[in-house]
């Protein structure tokens, strides 16, 4: 098997959005997530000599980011001091849910599953986006994720609207094919 090589110059273009999504879904704060991604890149650079080339570059960076997320939670926990558990018998409810038994999570709720599934869906889509040609990926992301207007995207990338729609069409067709097996 060919050994993987690190190319830090391409990291931001190739992996920043993927890692950012990963981080946001775990810390739920865009600013913190951004910092964690940046720290991950720095740590990657610093320990580049330890990279054995067994894993793909992105997998390796994700494993660093995982550590950073754990460290982040350690840090905020130690700051808050030892967790103090205070149990108020429901402060806001009027009548219902006074009993502890009524306050536990509904075991039949599907919320947790949905969150997990959406996270998987998110990384599946990100995976497929990284397989697109760079400019197509950028146009697709600006339109679909950022929700930018066609005019703004055209100005920013110096293309005309018909170029833009051709790229959108190709990107969407490719994504449908790529996501096909698992998600449609």
């Amino acid at each position, binding site marked *: 098997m060919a050994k993987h090589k690190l190319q*830090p*110059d391409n*990291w*931001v*273009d190739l992996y*920043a*959005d993927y890692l*950012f*999504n990963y981080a*946001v879904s775990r810390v739920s704060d*865009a600013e913190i997530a*951004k910092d964690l*991604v*940046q720290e991950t*890149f*720095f740590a990657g*650079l610093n320990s580049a000599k330890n990279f054995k080339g067994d894993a793909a570059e992105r997998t390796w960076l994700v494993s660093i980011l995982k550590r950073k997320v754990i460290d982040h939670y350690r840090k905020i926990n130690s700051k808050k001091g030892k967790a103090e558990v205070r149990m108020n018998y429901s402060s806001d409810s009027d009548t219902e849910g006074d009993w502890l038994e009524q306050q536990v999570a509904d075991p039949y709720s599907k919320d947790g599953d949905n969150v997990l599934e*959406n996270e998987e*869906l*998110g990384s599946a*889509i*990100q995976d497929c986006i990284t397989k697109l040609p760079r400019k197509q990926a950028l146009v697709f*992301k600006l*339109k*679909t*994720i*950022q929700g930018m207007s*066609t005019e703004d995207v055209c100005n*920013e990338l110096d293309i005309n609207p018909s170029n833009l*729609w051709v790229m*959108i*069409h190709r990107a*969407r067709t490719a*994504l*449908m094919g790529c*996501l096909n097996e698992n*998600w*449609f």
Partner: protein
Amino acid sequence: MKISCKEASSICDKSQYKEASWWDILKLRIHLTYCKVCQAYSKKNSELTSLCDRAGLTMLSEEDKKKMKRDLEEKH
């Protein structure tokens, strides 16, 4: 009133971003009544839109990325 499949898919793409005029959408609707190929494309296209919505994707702004690149190069 008749449009080609190419036009139909282009209107369909635009409508995913709410950028198709009602007149175009009408033409697309008519086309879809008899064209199986575009029906399939249109269905998948809307599904892709809802998948993207459901996934709650986010991305870094270009400025953030530029800054990251600068910082990385400094350390590099």
